[in-house]
């Protein structure tokens, strides 16, 4: 019994370690600025939206939010379409040297993203895409891991169903849309959610490929806000931080089991 009690204390301690910083963020974001700079800190603040209006005045957060949303929605859509079409082709169609091509797709996973920054910046500059949505989105829509996950999933679907569709005269695209995708819904949701989280959180690429406030995304805007406001405006910065985190926290709460499922699957089946 005593052991069990200790285990519960540890469990609660662990929860506190991970919730503490989030509570600190939340309480600061809604504190009155005077409460932030009092000591000892106010643990139960008097709630106010003041920090959010300060953040809005300090930086164009509505614009950042719009840009992040556009990039996440369009980028995720294009990347997942790429993954689904490529996976379908590799799972169901014939082509000479198909195996070699598949390893070329998978091989992209061996290239660390950070190594591609400078050349991709130069390529995007050559294309005239610096500070554009195309420059922000296109370099990231190549899909290797998501293609791999989708193809492996397609191969587990029973052949009879796709055969039946073909016998009924359905073309490949129709089979994909009407038969294969509906049977792959959980995997599709997983891929969409994981891709969207990555797009939203992406930091270094938007940082180097944009150069005006009107094209910045939320995470980059946050860095600029922190550098400009410095230590004098934690309330403003925490309000901005909450704007960056809230949508992903929401998605996580809703789609938690898809994210967790996809990540453990990717790890254990690899």
């Amino acid at each position: 019994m005593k052991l069990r009690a200790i285990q519960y204390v540890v469990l609660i301690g662990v929860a506190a370690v991970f919730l503490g910083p989030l509570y600190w963020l939340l309480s600061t974001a809604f504190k009155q600025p005077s409460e932030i700079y009092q000591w000892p800190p106010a643990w139960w603040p008097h709630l106010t939206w003041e920090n959010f209006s300060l953040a809005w005045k300090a930086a164009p957060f509505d614009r950042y939010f719009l840009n992040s949303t556009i990039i996440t929605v369009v980028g995720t859509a294009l990347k997942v379409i790429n993954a689904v079409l490529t996976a379908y082709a590799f799972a169901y169609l014939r082509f000479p040297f198909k195996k070699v091509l598949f390893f070329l797709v998978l091989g992209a996973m061996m290239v660390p993203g950070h190594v591609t920054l400078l050349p991709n910046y130069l390529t995007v500059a050559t294309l005239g895409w610096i500070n554009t949505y195309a420059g922000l989105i296109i370099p990231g829509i190549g899909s290797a891991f998501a293609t791999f996950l989708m193809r492996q999933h397609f191969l587990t679907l029973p052949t009879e169903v796709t055969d039946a569709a073909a016998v009924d005269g359905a073309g490949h695209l129709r089979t994909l849309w009407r038969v294969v995708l509906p049977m792959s819904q959980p995997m599709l949701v997983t891929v969409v959610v994981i891709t969207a989280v990555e797009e939203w959180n992406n930091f270094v690429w938007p940082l180097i490929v944009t150069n005006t406030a009107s094209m910045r995304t939320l995470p980059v805007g946050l860095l600029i806000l922190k550098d400009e406001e410095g230590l004098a405006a934690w309330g403003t910065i925490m309000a901005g931080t909450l704007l960056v985190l809230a949508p992903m926290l929401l998605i996580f709460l809703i789609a938690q089991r898809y994210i967790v499922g996809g990540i453990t699957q990717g790890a254990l089946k690899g």
Partner: protein
Amino acid sequence: MTVVELPARTHPDERTLATGNDQLKRRRRREYGLFALLVAPNLLVIAVFAYWPIIYNAFLSLTDWNMIAARPKFIGLANYGRTLTDPAFHKTLWITVVFTGLIVVGSLIIGLALAFLFNLPLKGRGAVRTIAFAPHILSGAAVATIWAFIFDPGYGLLRALIEPFGAEPPDWMNNSDWALPGLVIVYLWKNVGFAALIYLAGLQGLPKELDEAAAIDGASTWTRFRAIKLPLLAPITFFLLITTVIGTFQAFDVIAVMTGGGPGDATTTLSWSIYNEGFQAFNAGRAATLSIIMFVILLVVTTVQAKVMERRVHYR
């Protein structure tokens, strides 16, 4: 990663019809065409933005170029000679290795401990597991600003927590002894939940019989952990080791927000110095050289992974 190979899927008609007639040839040509159409956009983007950068980097690393002059000046291997003998580069490499080592060891040990905790029959363990995993999917930049305020020596959470014990917090991010450990804490907070999740899945997949038999034979909890569970979890430990090394080598967002490589060069990792050389000093040749060095290091890591995975450190 193993690629499942199933027999190629052919159109059902073809399995019954004799091959060789015109209709089949036409159908095959159409199938090839469709394949090319479906795969081309993805392959094009991958070729231009994943493979071409390696070649481009290799070329740029042989040049001296400020990205303004009309064309890069070819200087042979001078960038490599200079970088590999540069004490500042040695320090960068050392910082990267220490940083990566601390995060790898920390997240494996803490992750495993958390997995054992979450595997106990405790009420609310599922919720705590979810809470511990949540930071993994949050923006690194946002997590960094939260921790920058926690570490704030004047009004931060950490000061509030340790002051009652008579301790005073250091000025974490402006102190060259504390900045790197501070970053390690943030990355651990963000990523141990991931390691815990993977370990937990591994623990729950272990065959129970072995452990039960050992328990009946009187093996202690520690012996069963060391002699049975740990070896059986080896493939998972190995997977986490590799992914954490690759991820940490490229760690950037938290560093950019919290320290900017400083104070001085105290947190200048390889990933930061690639950014710094390329986008702040505008020295394309040096940045490309550092990129190639990082690429080679991580290529060795992934190749080792592939080789070991082939030999399967697997219990099944």
